[in-house]
């Protein structure tokens, strides 16, 4: 059994953990919750030997252990699914799943690829990963990569399994499946440490929950004694607000963006849809159903083999993101902040202002540094980005705070059309509400047109009044929830049920 005792850990700019002690029992799912930057990932990394604590100790079976690298943790059957996606892009799905145990497949100095592929396929199926195991992972979506990491952890018969926001990019389907798996392995005596910002999942799967706030442990409680509201109260020290977003009046005129008969060999066949001014159009579907891929085509980052995109009624010629942004004022918030959204080595201000440098120039064409800092500060305050100053490098922020930077840069960009792919991956409740409010205001107040790709059902039902359901690279259904004046006419349960029907 695993115990942590009086763990303290400081980083250059902040004390991430302050005298934290928790006991983890065998055969329990132990959830750790807290706001962005509360110290959850730091705690996990300490248990796994990735960080060494400044003070305190980690005990396993009553004895203090000193881990110096993740390898040491693996040797003790402690396994981590990290919050950040960690896969080797050029290797296949199977190699990535079996990454930490390739040596088990050595036969006479050679690696037995056939057996690796066969075993990997079993785990891929277990987590509902549909991509073939011999495919390189570079082309897969963030969610599929997440599934690979889960499969990797599951296949290594760990006795302590740490999952740091494993479901952040997953849809309900894969998530339910994962929770089911967790219940099963817990029955086998495994300790599961589960970090998530989605409290529904925590309530559904956890036995006990520990709450961190600003690096301190607020408490550990059996889940049976807690309600969602109480957990939130412990996390943020106040009650959560519920957001009644109300009506969204959509411009009845001709569409702002229209896709007509988009085709891409082997994937899309004749896909069409329209987006109106002031609308939030939802794209929902299972992982790998083609939502992000369609967005890539729209912004010119992937080629299409047929069909046309019309913007403001005119045929658009978009060959790159630069065309999309500068010719048509269409932005794209990537789902994959680490690889595609952020320059981790650069300061926050650079990352936020990168899309608006043109606007920040003085009459000699120089970027006004003060204006750049001010822009960054503005968003840091609005989105509650936890950092010492706008000059801090993005790489040293917690995952959720990085996500906020990644979305802030597009909120700053003043686009007419914004494609937002998974805006709240890893973002805590408070900031999530705020991001929802911002997206809503963009459409409602500023009349921007928004495509919202999200795997978070409550999020998409809450924000979008029209939802396109994707399956196997096709739009299989359209769910409407806009009555008179664009007010929602149906409740969450009804809408989500209808979406579910299209996916069945």
């Amino acid at each position, binding site marked *: 059994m695993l115990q942590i005792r009086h763990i303290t850990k400081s980083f250059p700019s902040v*004390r991430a953990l302050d005298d934290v002690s928790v006991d983890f029992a065998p055969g329990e799912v132990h959830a750790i919750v807290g706001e962005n930057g509360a110290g959850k990932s730091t705690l996990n990394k300490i248990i796994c030997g990735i960080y060494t604590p400044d003070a305190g100790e980690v005990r396993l079976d009553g004895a203090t252990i000193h881990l110096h690298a993740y390898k040491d943790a693996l040797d003790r059957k402690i396994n981590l699914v990290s919050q950040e996606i960690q896969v080797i892009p050029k290797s296949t799905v199977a190699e990535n799943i079996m990454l930490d145990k390739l040596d088990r497949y050595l036969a006479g100095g050679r690696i037995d690829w056939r057996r690796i592929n066969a075993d990997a396929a079993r785990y891929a199926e277990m987590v509902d990963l549909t991509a073939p195991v011999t495919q390189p992972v570079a082309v897969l979506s963030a969610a599929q990569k997440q599934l690979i990491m889960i499969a990797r952890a599951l296949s290594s018969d760990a006795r302590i399994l740490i999952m740091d926001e494993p479901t952040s990019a997953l849809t309900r389907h894969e998530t339910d499946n994962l929770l089911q798996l967790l219940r099963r392995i817990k029955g086998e005596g495994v300790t599961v440490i589960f970090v998530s910002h989605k409290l529904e999942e925590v309530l559904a799967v956890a036995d006990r929950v520990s709450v961190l706030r600003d690096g301190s442990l607020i408490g550990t409680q059996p889940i049976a004694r807690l309600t969602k509201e109480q957990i939130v109260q412990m996390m943020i020290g106040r009650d959560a607000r519920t957001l009644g977003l109300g009506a969204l009046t959509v411009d009845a005129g001709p569409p702002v963006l229209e896709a007509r008969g988009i085709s891409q060999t082997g994937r899309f066949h004749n896909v069409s849809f329209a987006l109106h001014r002031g609308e939030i159009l939802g794209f929902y579907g299972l992982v790998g159903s083609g939502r992000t891929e369609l967005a890539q085509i729209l912004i010119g980052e992937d080629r299409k083999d047929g069909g046309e995109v019309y913007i403001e009624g005119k045929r658009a010629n978009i060959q790159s993101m630069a065309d999309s942004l500068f010719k048509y004022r269409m932005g794209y918030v990537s789902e994959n902040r680490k*690889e595609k959204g952020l320059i981790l*080595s650069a300061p926050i201000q*650079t990352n936020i202002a*990168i*899309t608006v440098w043109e606007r920040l120039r003085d009459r000699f064409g120089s*970027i006004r*540094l003060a204006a750049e800092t001010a822009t960054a500060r503005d968003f840091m305050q609005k989105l*509650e980005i936890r950092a010492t*100053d706008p000059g801090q490098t993005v790489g040293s922020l917690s995952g959720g705070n990085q996500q906020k930077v990644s979305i802030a840069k597009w909120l700053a960009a003043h686009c007419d059309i914004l494609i937002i792919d998974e805006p709240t991956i890893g973002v805590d409740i408070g900031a999530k509400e705020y991001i929802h409010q911002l997206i809503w205001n963009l459409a409602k107040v500023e009349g921007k047109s928004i495509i919202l790709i999200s795997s978070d059902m409550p999020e998409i039902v809450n924000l979008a009044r029209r939802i396109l359901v994707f399956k196997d690279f096709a739009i299989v259904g359209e769910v409407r929830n806009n009555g008179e004046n664009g007010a929602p006419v149906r409740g969450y349960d009804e809408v989500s049920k209808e979406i579910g029907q299209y996916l069945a």
Partner: protein
Amino acid sequence: MTQREVKLLARQTNQRGGVGSALRGILRRSDTSVVIATLILFILFSFSNSSFLTPFNLFNMSRTASLYVMVALGQAIVIVIGHMNLSLGAIGGLTVVVAGWCMDTMGWSPWVAAPLALLIGTLCGMFNGFIIVKSRLNSFIVTLASLFIFTGLVQGISQGFPYSNIPKEFTMMGRNDLMGVPFLFIFVVIVLIVLGYVFKYRIVGRRLLATGGNLEAARLSGIRTDNIILLAHTLSGVFAATAGLLWVSRMGSAQPSTGTDWLIVSFAVAIIGGTALNGGEFSALGILASAIMLTLIKNGLIMLNVNVYFEQTFLGVIVLLAVSVESIRMALSNRSRRSQVKSTA
């Protein structure tokens, strides 16, 4: 909400201001160690050797340092985007040979020769960039190949013979001075100031840095990264060609062997000067300081009567040292920030 904001603000203000923060800022800079090291070396040499601070020695050293800066810029501008240019010296050599051929063999005026040579160098850089962008091969392979292409041209055109008939007006730049400060040095400082400004204040400079920081993210932020890559390599050619011309101007003759030793110098000066090897960082001050430092060391070795044939060994050792110092600096800057947090917490 408001309560949390107040706390957040308190957290932030806690960590700003004061001597600690100034020190942290300095330690955080990538060029601090090289500037300090250069100053120390300079002081050491001034005391230990009476012939060091003579106008003649300073004049010569600053001219050498200036050429080093120019060569290093050719490398730094591509390191900034995470690339490298192995053909840098060959482009320099080709420029030298073209300039020599124009002035000596053809007898043309420097006003024709210099622009023509510069154009050739620029085209060489552009060629590298174009192939890299179109073929999607990495810069190592492409510039390795072009190193051979350009070197072959140098040898083919010159047949290995130097051009010594260089007009006086052309050597002005490399040999004359303004109130004791060599033209070369003034020129290079101006170039550095302009570059420092461009990287900090101009969009194009920022785009170069962003592309080096994360190519994908830069492209998805609307930056035409292919153009940026082409630009960086073209500029690398421009700097290499400029360095070549200045070299001729200083030597008073055009040697086909010019540039053969630029590779190690260019990397040494750029890296020691704080240009992050994996891209995204540039320091004009650092490059100036590290060029001066290398010149000082070279000068010192000569004064100490060390066998000059070992020069490259020393350069290599210094590069290794610089990289280690860099990691020590990181650790130190972390420690100082940490202790400060503890004291305020």
